[in-house]
């Protein structure tokens, strides 16, 4: 019996030792794998273009994220230079100074066509022909040296030389002509277009890349955070830089905000900001900020400007009707009331 006990004890001890060894190996393997696991590394690129601060935050397993970010910034800068109304050599300047038909490259034609589409949708609240007015107020200069409140007579004259219906597009011959001395300013849409182009290029290079591109608070999502999670986007409180009036969770699409705090000056206690009402020629009143979520940055950019202009006059129309055009809106009015499209709630929940 004593010998049999020893045998059982020996066998049991062997089992326990093997169990211990196997368990240790498994745990050690897991620890090593965990430690060696490389989290997706994001590269952040900061720069100035499109008349504002741009931030590119990307990750890719196919290409060095730094190279990808630089590639995207180059594209943003290319579009800025091409459509910078202050550069006499830009494509846009050549259209603006011409009295006749101007042949357009495909990209410019598509962009102008999109701008006119948003003008029609918003019944002129988004208007790409405010170049003369913007120049009059001095908001076209990034150095902010020449901002001023123009005389009402000057504004009346400048208003005569605005209106999106003064842009003629010839689809057959892919050309454009401007009437009534209007000047195009694509400030309300070029940024969105540039962000969408950055997205396209990123996806062409690496369909699985993730991250986002930001230009002056307008954001185009390239792909979900770490490939699976939505990015948390704070909507800035117009009255307090440190606070948010809401949060959005986006793993695709875009968001843009137009606010009266971005570029402004104060004269006799009145704040004059850069988002002009195409009907009055003065800064649009009634709204402090308009945020729009859309599937593309072009849509978000153009509709946020229109939402800002229209929001003070008819906020119900903006929050209820804009979603039909693909823009889901959050408005903060002058009394700090928040008006939202019901459809925005989809983006306010962390999925």
């Amino acid at each position, binding site marked *: 019996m004593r010998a049999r006990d020893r045998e059982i004890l020996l066998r049991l001890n062997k089992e326990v030792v093997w169990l*211990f060894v196997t368990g240790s190996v498994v*745990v050690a393997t897991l620890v090593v794998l965990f430690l060696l696991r490389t989290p997706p590394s994001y590269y952040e690129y900061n720069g100035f273009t499109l008349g504002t*601060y741009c931030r590119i935050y990307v990750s890719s397993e196919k290409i060095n994220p730094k190279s990808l970010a630089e590639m995207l910034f180059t594209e943003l800068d290319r579009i800025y230079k091409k459509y910078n109304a202050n550069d006499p050599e830009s494509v846009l300047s050549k259209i603006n100074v011409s009295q006749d038909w101007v042949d357009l490259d495909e990209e410019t034609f598509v962009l102008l066509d999109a701008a006119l589409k948003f003008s029609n949708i918003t019944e002129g609240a988004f208007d790409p022909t405010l170049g003369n007015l913007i120049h009059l107020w001095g908001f076209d200069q990034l150095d902010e040296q020449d901002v001023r409140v123009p005389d009402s007579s000057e504004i009346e004259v400048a208003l005569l030389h605005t209106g999106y219906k003064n842009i003629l597009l010839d689809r057959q011959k892919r050309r454009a002509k401007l009437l009534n001395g209007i000047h195009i300013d694509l400030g309300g849409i070029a940024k969105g277009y540039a962000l969408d182009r950055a997205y396209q290029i990123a996806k062409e290079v690496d369909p699985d890349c993730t991250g986002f591109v930001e230009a002056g608070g307008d954001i185009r999502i390239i792909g979900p955070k770490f490939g699976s999670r939505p*990015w*948390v*986007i704070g909507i800035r409180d117009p009255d307090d*830089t*440190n606070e948010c009036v809401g949060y959005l969770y986006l793993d695709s699409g875009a968001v843009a905000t137009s606010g009266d705090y971005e570029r402004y000056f104060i004269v006799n206690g009145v704040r004059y900001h850069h988002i002009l009402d195409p009907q009055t020629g003065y800064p649009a009143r009634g709204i402090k900020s308009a945020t729009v979520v859309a599937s593309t940055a072009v849509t978000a950019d153009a509709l946020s400007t229109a939402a800002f202009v229209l929001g003070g006059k008819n906020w119900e129309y903006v929050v209820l009707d804009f979603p039909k055009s693909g823009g889901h809106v959050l408005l903060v009015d002058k009394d700090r009331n928040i008006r939202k499209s019901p459809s925005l709630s989809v983006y306010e929940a962390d999925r």
Partner: protein
Amino acid sequence: MKRTGNLFRIWDIAILVVMCSAVAMFFCFHTYGEGSGYIEVSVNGEVVLKTSADGVYPVVVNGKRLLSVVKDGEKVRVEDSTCPLKICEKMGTVGPGGVIICVPNKVVVKFVHTNESVDVMTW
């Protein structure tokens, strides 16, 4: 009794190993990225200052002073900017995760915080 005693001793060691491993993993992954925030100042996309120390930091490029950045604990602000409208100064103080932008001078002041709950702001 002897057999039971041996068995428990070995299992005790096994459990201890597992627990030590778990604790090691916890520290490996939870100490990463922690610590207080810092400010990062860039001019035209190029980082010119990165610090977590409080103080007043003049931002000078090519001998020209553009503005001063003031870090005071969990707050940062801009003062004495050479830009005409002083929008960067009017933004006041920002805390962790906040950004101050001076467009004319192409200066970005970021209060970088490793435990940000917000990835990016729309404004």
